[in-house]
């Protein structure tokens, strides 16, 4: 029975491979899926979103609001891809596949909990990013409020709000609100946070799916057990946290960029790294604890 299943599976896999590798399926970004695939994906996506979005409660005082602050937030995080009333997306976004949706239409068609769901969780393989743990709850709801207000906002009124607003917000200002955080790191949240801060783009990390031959930064499986952080300062939880937040403060020459990680999140990430290194310091206290 098992052998039969395995051989059937291999056959199917070989078929798909031959189909794709043989160039029968177009994986470029200049050609949309065939219409039936396109519509099937749309139905699948919308069904799942409708089901899952119910889990997040809309705040009681929620209302559509188009004001200068919300517009500034939206311009920082969303316009590049989605454009805005009377505003085109950036050039790169025009060539994305799928092309980022027009959010005036989305605001008409989708309830707030679904808009919020897209912002928070993103959409795998579409190019839509997740802001979970990188934007505060409050800001995610502010942007949701703006998208819900889009259908009643003229391009002219939008342009006035752009004029009125702060031109650039500090990057990811209020992530600190994303808590609640304890003085002890939460390893599981740290693992998830590493995914949404692009850590696996450069590091191999136990417990996080990614390429197995990637050496931009060092593998992190034993980082918690190594004697130094980044080869320059002793490995203590406080140094690990400082490194994750601001690598150049620790080593000005480092190629690791500052990713705007807030302190609570960095503490969680450190807790995860100590946990997988098996150093027995899965909870990272506020007071320095020697991991060795």
């Amino acid at each position, binding site marked *: 029975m098992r052998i039969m299943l395995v051989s059937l599976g291999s056959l199917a896999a070989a078929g798909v491979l031959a189909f794709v590798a043989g160039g029968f399926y177009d994986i470029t970004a200049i050609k949309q899926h065939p219409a039936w695939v396109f519509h099937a994906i749309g139905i699948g996506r919308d069904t799942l979103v409708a089901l899952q979005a119910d889990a997040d409660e809309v705040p009681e005082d929620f209302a559509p609001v188009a004001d200068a602050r919300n517009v500034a937030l939206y311009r920082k995080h969303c316009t590049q891809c989605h454009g805005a009333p009377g505003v085109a997306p950036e050039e790169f976004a025009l060539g994305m596949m799928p092309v980022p949706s027009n959010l005036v239409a989305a605001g008409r068609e989708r309830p707030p909990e679904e808009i919020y769901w897209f912002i928070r969780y993103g959409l795998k393989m579409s190019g839509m990013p997740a802001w979970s743990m990188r934007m505060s709850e409050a800001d995610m709801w502010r942007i949701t409020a703006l998208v819900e207000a889009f259908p009643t906002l003229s391009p002219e009124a939008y342009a006035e709000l752009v004029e009125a607003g702060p031109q650039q917000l500090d990057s990811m200002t209020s992530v600190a609100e994303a808590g609640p955080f304890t003085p002890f790191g939460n390893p599981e949240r740290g693992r998830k946070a590493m995914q949404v801060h692009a850590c696996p783009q450069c590091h191999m990390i136990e417990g996080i799916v990614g390429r197995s*031959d990637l*050496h*931009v*930064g*060092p*593998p992190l499986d*034993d980082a918690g*057990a*190594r*004697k*130094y952080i*980044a*080869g*320059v*300062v002793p490995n203590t939880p406080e140094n690990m946290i400082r490194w994750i937040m601001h690598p150049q403060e620790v*080593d*000005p*020459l*480092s*190629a*690791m960029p500052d990713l705007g990680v807030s302190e609570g999140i960095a503490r969680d990430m450190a807790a995860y790294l100590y946990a997988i290194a098996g150093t027995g310091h899965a909870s990272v206290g506020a007071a320095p604890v020697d991991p060795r």
Partner: protein
Amino acid sequence: MMRALILLPLLLAGCDDDPSAAARALISANGCGTCHQIPEFDGADGVTGPPLTAMSRQVYVAGVVPNTLEALTAFIADPQAIDPRSAMPDLNLSQDEARLIAQYLYAVGEGS
């Protein structure tokens, strides 16, 4: 001086025919394995420094300069010349010795 005397025969022994034997001799004599994991080296499983198990694949040396034979050689010969904050000790290796080790590290391990 003492060390040079100890190393010289090891080096000469290897140099004639097999540069990788010379590199291995240098690696054992300098105790690289007490601080690093090194492929195909018994007991080289230190965790003071990072693993040297995929040197030919690494994008950077010591996380600060692009990984080329020149940079790797320079770092092994004088870590602080590449990164003044580096915690790797300067082992007083010559450029030639460092290059032998660098070539060896490229030739072993993942991606070689």
